[in-house]
C-alpha cells in the first residue's frame, strides 16, 4: 500500500525526470553504506527486501528511502538525491536470479513430502 502511494506520488509529480545516476559510484556507496548487509551483495534480499528486479522507478526509489518504514530512513543530508540516483543506477545493473524452474534442486525440494 505504502509503495503504491509512493509510486502514484512519483508519477503525478513527474519526479522521474531525475538525472541518470552513476552506477560505478553507486556500487561504492552500496558497499560503503552496507546496503548489502540487509539486501545481500547482489540485491537478492536477506534480512531486508529483494531489490532485483527493482520494482520502483528512480523517483519512487528515492521517495521510499527518505521515508522507508521498517528500513532505516536516509535523509537528503546523509544521502543526497544524486547519490541515491547513483545507488539506484547500480541496483539496475544487478542481474535477476535464475528462475526456480531452472534449478533442479529447488524442483526436487518442491516434490518432497
Amino acid at each position: 500500500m505504502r509503495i503504491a502511494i509512493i509510486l502514484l506520488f512519483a508519477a503525478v509529480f513527474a519526479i522521474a525526470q531525475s538525472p541518470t545516476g552513476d552506477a560505478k559510484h553507486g556500487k561504492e556507496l552500496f558497499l560503503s553504506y552496507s546496503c548489502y548487509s540487509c539486501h545481500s551483495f547482489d540485491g537478492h534480499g536477506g534480512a531486508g527486501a529483494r531489490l532485483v528486479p527493482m520494482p520502483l522507478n528512480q523517483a519512487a526509489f528515492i521517495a521510499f528511502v527518505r521515508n522507508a518504514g521498517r528500513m532505516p530512513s536516509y535523509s537528503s543530508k546523509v544521502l543526497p538525491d544524486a547519490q541515491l540516483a547513483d545507488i539506484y543506477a547500480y541496483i539496475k545493473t544487478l542481474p535477476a536470479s535464475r528462475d526456480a524452474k531452472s534449478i533442479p534442486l529447488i524442483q526436487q525440494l518442491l516434490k518432497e513430502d
Partner: protein
Amino acid sequence: MAKSKRTSVDRRGFLKGAAAGAATLVAKPQLAEAQQAGTQSVEQTAQARGANGSAPAPTQVALARETGGRPAESTRVIEHPGSDYMVDVLKTLDIEYLAANPGSTYESLHESLINYGDNKMPEFLTACHEESAVAMAHGYAKIEGKPMMALIHGDIGLQHASMAIYNAYVDRVPIYMVVGNHSDGARRAPGVQSLHSAQDLGALVRDYTKWDDEPLSLGHFAESAVRAYKIAMTPPSGPVLIVCNAEIQGDPIQGATPRIPKLTLTTPPAGDSAAVREAAKLLINAERPQIIAQRMARTPEGMTLLVELAELLQAPVNSQERMNFPTRHPLAGTGWVGYQPDVTLNLEVGDILPQARIDRTRGAKTIQITAVSVSHKSNIQDFGHYADIDLDIGADAQATLPALIEEIKKELTPDRKRAFEERGAKLAEAHKKAWDDQILQAQYGWDSSPISLARLTGELWPLIKNDDWSLVSPQGFVGNWPTRLWKFDKHYQYIGGQGAGGMGYGAPAAVGAALANRKHGRLSVNIQTDGDMNYAPGVLWTAAHHRIPLLTIMHNNRGYHQEVMFVEEQATLHNRGADRAHIGTKLWDPNIDYAKMAQAYGMHGEGPITDPNDLVPALKRGIEIVKKGEPAMIDVVTQPR
C-alpha cells in the same frame, strides 16, 4: 585474563634450584606428613607450593626422576582421599561425561576421577575455556535429555563459565556443575589459592543458577550431590552447582564412608484438573485456535503428545526454540493468510506479552501453561513483561498435555469434530502453499558469490537426508533456512537457540550435542556463525582430541552482521551517514582463515569456498570425514543473512 594455575618455570633453572635445595628438603619434614598431622603452617604450605602459589618444590621422588638418583620412598601417601568417595557418589548419577579446564581447586577430585574412577562415568573431556565446558554440557543435555557435568576451577573458572550458565538457565536446560574452592582460610596458601577462592562461591552465579550448595563434609556432599541432580532435572530444568572444598577432596576418608542416598527424580508438576478442564473447553469452542510451543518438548514424548493434541483440535502449531513439532506436518505453521486466532494456547513460552497483547486487542483468549510461573527469581529479568492472560496454569506443559488431551476427547461433540476436520483441511492446504512458497524463495541469489544461505542449506540437504542427522546449531542467524527447506520430524534433529542470546554458545554447544549424538551414530551438522566461533575456538581442539564427529560449516559473513544493521539504523536515526557502520562490527582486514584455524586445532579444514559450484564437493569431503568419526570444518563465505 590472568589465570595462573601454576607459574611456568624454566625446566633447567627449576632443576638447578631444586638440586641445590635437596639437602634442605630431605632434612625438613615433608609437607604431606605435616598435612596429615594437621600441623603445617600457612608459611610452610606456601613454601612447599611455591611462594606465589606456583609449582611446589619437588619431592624426593620427583627429584630422583629428574636427576637419576634413587631416593628413599616418599612417606606422603593418602590412599583414600575424600575425592575417591566423591567419585563413588558421582557414579551413581549416571553422568556420562564431564568437561573441564584444569585447575588446582579440584586437583584431588581430578586425579580421583581419572584413576580411582577409571575415567569412566563420567569420562573427562578437556575444555579450553570454562564457558566452553558449560556450553558443551548445554548442547549435550538438549540431545540427551539429562545433565553432563562441568568441573570448574574456583572463582576464576566460575566467572569464565558465567555466561554459559546464564544461557542454560534461561533455556531451562539441566547442567551439573562442580566447582573447586579452597574454603579453609587457615589451610590455603597465600597467592593464587586465596585469589581463586571465595567465601560464598555460588553467589557469583546464584541469580541464574537453579540451586547451589557448599557441602561441609563427605556425607553432606553425597546428599547435596544427589539433591542437585534431582533439582536440575525437575521442570523447569536448570543448571545446579556444588561447591567442592579442596580440603574435603584431599583429606583422607576417616572411618566408614557415608551412605550414598538413592536418587529418585521428582515427577514434573502437572496442571490442576479444574484449570485443565477449562482450557479444554476454551479450545474446543474456539473457531480458530492456535498453539505456540517454545521450550515445551523436553523429550521425544513431548513431540508425540503435541502432535496428538494438534490433530485432535486440528489447530496450527507454531513451534519455536525446540523440536516440538514436525516441520512438514500439515498443521505446522500459523494458519492460513488472515487466520486470526480466537484462543491461543502457549506452551512453555518465554515472554508471553507480545502474543497476549495481540489476543487482547481482538478479544481473543490467552492460555498459558508453564512451570516457570512457579519458579521465578528476582534479579534477572528473563520472566519478561507481565502479561494479561485469561488462564495461567503453573505446571510443566509436557506433563500436562496427557490430561488436556483426555479432557478434550471427553468433551468433544460430533459437531465440533466435523468443524475441526473442515478447519484442518484448510490448514493443510495453507501449510502446503506456505511450504512451497518458502522453497521458491531459495531461488533468489542462488548463483551468488558470496554464497546465499539458502543455497548453502539447500545443497546440504540431499547430502544428509538419508542419514540419521541432527542440526546442532541455532537457525536465527542463518535465516531459518534449515526449517524452511529440510524435513524435521525427530526430537534430536534440532537443539534450538542460546537461551539468553549470549554469543559464544554455538560452537561449544554443537560439540556437546555432537558428543551426545556420537553413541547413536548420528551425523551432527553445525552451521556456525563466524562471530560466535571466535569467542572460544579452542573447542575445535576439544572436538578433535576427543574424536567427536561433527561437520561444522562456517557461515562466514565476516562480521557481527546483526550489529552492522543496528549501527546503520542508529546512524540514520541520528541523521548521520551509515558509511562507518563497519567500525566495530566487521571481521575483515585481515579475513579470518577458518580452514587454517581448523587445521591448527587438528581437524580437517577447507575453504574459503566462495563459488557455489565448489560447495557440494567440499561438503561431501567433510561428511565423509565426519562419518569416519572425526570433526571437519568447511569455511563458506556467505551473504550476510
